[in-house]
């Protein structure tokens, strides 16, 4: 359960003050599938970063699963990111010098999981995302769809409760993008909260709840019945 109350995030661009988020309050229950849409600069990525504890609000309160996380120390926030949150990025953000398997393994290493367990879980993930024969390839040798599959495998390997996807299909063609979305939706169906930031209407319409933002405020927030 994500509970944001009166979140404001201000950026200073030179002498200009930009309110990326202006007094935003939103509540997302566990297991929801939410799309956040809006034009560039509307604050949707900032909102996602704050939910993912990558960014700190200037004011307001954020409670995750009933616990106030705005007041936590950096190490405690890192621990929450490690255990409860999985990120999927538009540009995949794979480590270019590590193989697919090693990229998937990274969160397990950071979590201090013993090597034996890591191996088992990485193998299972490779199997689940149909990457078995790509395990020893580096990102440069993978297609865009394969890269995003590796990224999703990495985001889910710690079995987080929330998946945050920032334009997950932005760098993929329509067909592959559709496949990636299906994978993410599968995670949602198994009970994970899925929050997708996109400016693709069609993609946004697949979610069960649509939040539309403009100028750092929530314009509309409504349930959606995907056809």
């Amino acid at each position, binding site marked *: 359960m994500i509970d944001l109350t009166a979140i404001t995030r201000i950026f200073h661009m030179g002498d200009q003050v930009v309110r990326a988020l202006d007094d935003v309050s939103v509540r997302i229950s566990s297991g929801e599938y939410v799309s956040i849409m809006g034009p560039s600069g509307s604050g949707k990525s900032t909102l996602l970063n704050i939910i993912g504890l990558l960014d700190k609000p200037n004011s307001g309160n954020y409670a995750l699963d009933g616990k106030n996380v705005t007041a936590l120390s950096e190490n405690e926030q890192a621990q929450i990111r490690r255990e409860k949150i999985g990120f999927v990025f538009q540009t995949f953000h794979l480590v270019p010098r590590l193989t697919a398997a090693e990229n998937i393994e990274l*969160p397990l290493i950071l*979590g201090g999981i013993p090597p034996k367990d890591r191996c088992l879980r990485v193998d299972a993930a490779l199997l689940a995302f149909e990457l078995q024969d790509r395990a020893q390839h580096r990102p440069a040798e993978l297609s865009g769809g394969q890269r995003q599959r590796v990224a999703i495998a990495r985001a889910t390997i710690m079995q987080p409760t929330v998946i945050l996807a920032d334009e997950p299909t932005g760098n993929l063609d329509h067909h592959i993008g559709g496949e990636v979305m299906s994978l993410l939706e599968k995670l949602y169906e198994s009970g994970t909260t899925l929050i997708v930031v996109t400016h693709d209407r069609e993609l946004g319409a697949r979610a069960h709840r649509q939040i539309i933002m403009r100028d750092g405020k929530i314009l509309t927030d409504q349930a959606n019945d995907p056809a």
Partner: protein
Amino acid sequence: MTLPDTLQLSFKAIMSYRLRSLLIVFAMALGVAAVIVLTALGDGARRYVVNQFSSIGTNLLVVLPGRAETSGSFPGAVLGQTPRDLTLKDAQLVGRLPQVRRYAPLNVGVAELSAANRLREVTVLGSNANLIPIRHMQLAQGSFLTQGSAQSAQIVLGAKLASEFFPRSQAIGQRVRLGENRFLVSGVLVLQGESMGFNTDEVVIIPIDYAQSLFNTTSLFRVLVEVNSRSEIQSAKQAVLDTLKESHDGEDDITVITQDAILATFDRILHALTLAVAGIAAISLIVAGVLIMNVMLVAVNQRTAEIGLLKAIGATAADIRRLFFVEALWLSLAGAVIGFILGQFGSLLLRFAYPQLPAWAPVWASLAGIIVALIAGILASLLPASRAARLDPVKALGKK
């Protein structure tokens, strides 16, 4: 993140930027090798000099006439006296001291040596039979003033003189003329070459009595005294001073030099020189450290997005800091180890090229080289590592 994982992950980073890592390790290795080779050279020179000194004799006291220091008033000056000569009688008195194993009085001069229609000027040493063992000289053939022949007109030729004067025949048993006197060649020295700027291959040795009459003098140039053991050097020196003071009517007019004192001075000078050279070489280690810092800063810049990602998937600032710290540590450790091997190899080459020079790097230099390399690496990694750890994840992820 566990320690083995940190070590492994940063090792992977090093292996994937191979050229960069290789160059850095090479720079560090050169620094460490420079410290080791240069100290090997310096310490080798020191040992070379020490060996040279012990080649002219061990546990040696050198007694010379006159005082080499100024103190108090000199009553002789009022009476018009000069310092007393050092005489054979003094030498014999010294020889009776319990600490003294043997002594050799010494007169040095130049005279004309002629034999077999050949003629040349030679340096003449006048002494007794003990000169040869005290100065660690060796006879290739024959003997010098062995028992029962103390007063005979014997002469020992340097190796080069023997072969010059008697190229085709045995030198021993030949008669030669030195100045106005005739001598019988009783021995030939082993070819030794120059030692301490004194070429024993071109000297002749004759009994002290003949030397004194040849040079028309009753005073000695030096008395060489070999003490029983190293621990008795100081007491022997005092005993010699006391004995000769008594013999010289209470006048402190001789000087005793211990070989140890000279040796210690050279030892100190060359040790300081070695340290200075090591210090200069250590500067290259600092330079290598700065290089590591530069490379790590570039690495932080290059891998900004990666750092952002690590933070997004739950790495703490400490994890990131440790990763970069360990990466620099790996680089400097590899540099230190390779440098150590290179340095030992370089010293080996030196010893091959100059067999007389015992160019072994002292242990302290090897250790100091490695430790300074590691410290330079660690210091150099602090700034880049903390910069990486402080990166704002959102900005870092935004950077391509």
